[in-house]
């Protein structure tokens, strides 16, 4: 598959169909993958495509305004481009989407940090309940889409971790999250890696007024994490990059998935379905539930 | 094509010929119908007037037996069984409260994922009319029938999802395919009196008489049905109707599977054509459409 990708990339660059291609290359350690930005035919040799290509490269689109960008996209990540298009952050005509049939990607956190060799692949949580096989749209398709047999665990509940937490008492939940958030160092890797956190200046950085404490303390950390989650409500497409990027292992996907589950149940809303879709919080239905309102 | 087959009580008793002809037709067309082992009553009318929950649990029990066979589609022929199974499925899909209760009773989770199909639907939509035509041994030319669907096959439409609510056409389409001419008549979905047959026979006589009359008036020589109870009311009660209303009807009441069977060249006896009260021999014999009864 990598070969097919390389050839396509060369062709695109030679024919000047794109100015650059955002893709994956082998990382310096020779095992993992890293993002790469290819603007010459020779560099196209670097491109790879395998289970180590975890990154959602849509985050990089903002770095190249007004350029014609080819981008290698996993089917699941395509939805984040849909949201970016919805929110006018990229122009479709500047995009050339190279959809790649996805073999499932690794869970980086499960790699042994001391081991220097290639290890057995443990698939990321999101891949285990992945339902998408065919990309909704694309310009170039690399290899026919097919489901990896190892991944299709029929009937696996994507919200299982959420339900487990929901089943706990409110006090237990507070203790759980208090302990998780206590490790937050406010490095904002979760924000920076997120393709949808593109605000010119995040509210977390604003000072007059400051919206919540920049201090690494419970209030500050809780406020930041709630704000991040709220700002992704109805937008998050569960690429899981925030959780992957978090150096201290806060289960951020469990928060995103909770909101995803609630809005599906409450508002019949799913993020990233189409470019024309109205943002969740910019619209409403007169019959939205309101049982908690007095 | 492989389906779990749910015959139901009628097809094992009064409507034996429906069961026979269905199996024969399926066999001839290479449609595999595997009877659900150890199936139980669908609950029919008595269950749902007694206890709503029971009327859901009984069909679901049957459905999960089918699921255990590894089948995600059940075929049934009886209009009542079809209605009950579809209704139960509908509730399992849309009503969490009932679903949870039923799941407790049957002891297994079930979310309505198994499809329930009527044999009509399978013939027309899965097997296909074109395909059927290709399999015919002969066409039953010259026969005019009224296709009668009764009250359960299309109602309520959000549950049955089968055919046009007011003007169904699946049987008509099949008949046309085998060379039979269906008449245009307005009583396709009238009520025959159904299970009042024993308790309030008078009602059944009146309603069935109207149906027979309309079919006769529109030039039908026979009526084609897809429901055991419709067949029984129109066939069994025809002589009483003739007496009571001073009529002279002599309309054989066929299951659609029987006529299809004939067109496929199947022996009439194998299709249970000898089990009718109003004998079809004269009509079929006279038209020379019948091999042997």
């Amino acid at each position, binding site marked *: 598959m990598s070969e097919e990708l390389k050839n396509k990339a060369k062709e695109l660059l030679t024919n000047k169909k794109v100015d650059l291609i955002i893709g994956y290359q082998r990382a310096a350690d020779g095992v993992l993958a890293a993002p790469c930005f290819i603007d010459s035919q020779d560099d196209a040799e670097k491109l790879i495509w395998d289970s180590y290509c975890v990154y959602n490269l849509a985050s990089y689109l903002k770095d190249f305004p007004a350029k014609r960008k080819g981008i290698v996209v996993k089917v699941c990540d395509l939805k984040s481009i849909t949201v970016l298009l919805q929110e006018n952050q990229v122009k479709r005509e500047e995009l050339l989407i190279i959809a790649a049939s996805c073999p499932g990607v690794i869970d980086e956190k499960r790699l042994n940090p001391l081991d220097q060799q290639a290890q057995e692949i443990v698939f990321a949580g999101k891949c285990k309940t992945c339902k998408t096989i065919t990309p909704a749209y694309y310009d170039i398709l690399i290899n026919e889409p097919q489901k990896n047999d190892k991944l299709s665990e029929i009937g696996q509940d994507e919200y299982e971790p959420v339900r487990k937490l*929901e089943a706990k008492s409110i006090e237990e939940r507070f203790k759980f999250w208090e302990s998780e958030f206590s490790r937050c160092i406010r490095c904002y890797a979760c924000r920076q890696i997120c393709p949808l956190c593109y605000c010119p200046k995040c509210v977390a950085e604003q000072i007059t007024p400051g919206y*919540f404490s920049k201090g690494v303390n419970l209030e500050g950390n809780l406020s930041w994490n709630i*704000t991040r989650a709220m700002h992704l409500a109805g937008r998050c497409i569960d690429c899981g990059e925030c959780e992957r990027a978090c150096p201290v292992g806060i289960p951020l996907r469990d928060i995103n998935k909770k909101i995803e589950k609630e809005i599906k149940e409450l508002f019949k809303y799913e993020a990233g379905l189409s470019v024309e879709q109205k943002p969740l919080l910019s619209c409403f239905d007169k019959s939205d539930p309101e049982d*908690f*309102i007095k | 094509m492989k389906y779990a087959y749910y015959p139901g009580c009628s097809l094992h008793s009064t409507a034996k010929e429906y069961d026979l002809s269905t199996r024969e037709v399926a066999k001839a067309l290479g449609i595999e119908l595997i009877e659900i082992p150890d199936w139980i009553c669908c609950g029919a009318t008595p269950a749902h007037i007694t206890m709503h929950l029971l009327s859901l649990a009984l069909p679901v029990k049957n459905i999960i037996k089918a699921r255990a066979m590894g089948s995600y589609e059940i075929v049934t022929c009886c209009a009542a069984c079809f209605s009950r199974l579809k209704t139960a499925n509908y509730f399992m899909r849309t009503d969490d409260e009932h679903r949870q209760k039923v799941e407790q009773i049957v002891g297994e989770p079930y979310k309505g994922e198994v499809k329930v199909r009527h044999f009509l639907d399978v013939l027309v939509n899965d097997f296909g009319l074109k395909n059927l035509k290709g399999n015919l041994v002969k066409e039953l030319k010259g026969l005019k029938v009224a296709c009668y669907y009764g009250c359960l096959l299309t109602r309520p439409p959000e549950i049955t999802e089968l055919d046009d609510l007011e003007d169904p056409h699946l049987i008509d389409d099949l008949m046309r395919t085998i060379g039979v001419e269906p008449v245009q008549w307005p009583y396709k979905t009238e009520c025959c009196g159904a299970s009042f047959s024993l308790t309030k026979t008078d009602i059944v006589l009146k309603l069935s008489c109207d149906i027979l009359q309309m079919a006769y008036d529109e030039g039908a020589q026979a009526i084609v049905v897809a429901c055991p109870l419709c067949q029984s009311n129109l066939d069994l009660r025809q002589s009483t109707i003739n007496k009571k209303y001073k009529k002279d009807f002599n309309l054989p009441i066929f299951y659609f599977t029987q006529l299809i069977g004939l067109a496929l060249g199947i022996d009439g006896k194998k299709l249970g054509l000898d089990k009718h009260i109003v004998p079809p021999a004269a009509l079929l014999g006279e038209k020379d459409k019948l091999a042997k009864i």
Partner: protein
Amino acid sequence: MTGDRSEWEPKIVGFLCNWCSYAGADLAGQSRLEYPPNVKIIRVPCSGRVNPLFVLKCLSSGVDGVLISGCHTGDCHYSEGNFHARRRFTILRKLFEYLGIDPKRFQMAWVSASEADKWAKLVKGLVEEIRQAGPNKLGHR
């Protein structure tokens, strides 16, 4: 000041829309309905003006309870603001519950300009509920 439980009085912030709830609270005054003094009112043009960040700010500044009150659905002066608020804060409240923040601390109500009685009762009930819930553990004051 938190600390001694017996001295502690619930501190509650109420975001009231200018057209219905603020006027409803005005009518409670005009009708001389007595209710506890714990709710401090911040007037906003519409419940739709309330940003989830305000609620977070309250809770992380040691406020014990937050109330957002607006027009009944269909009565919004701006026609749709309360529908927007409803959706927004339904999600926030679900998230609070999930993160273990007592949902009693964040409430919403529809109070019309004529519902003085409802306003007074709402405040009484709210103060009682927050008293039960105890001081807000978050917040550094």
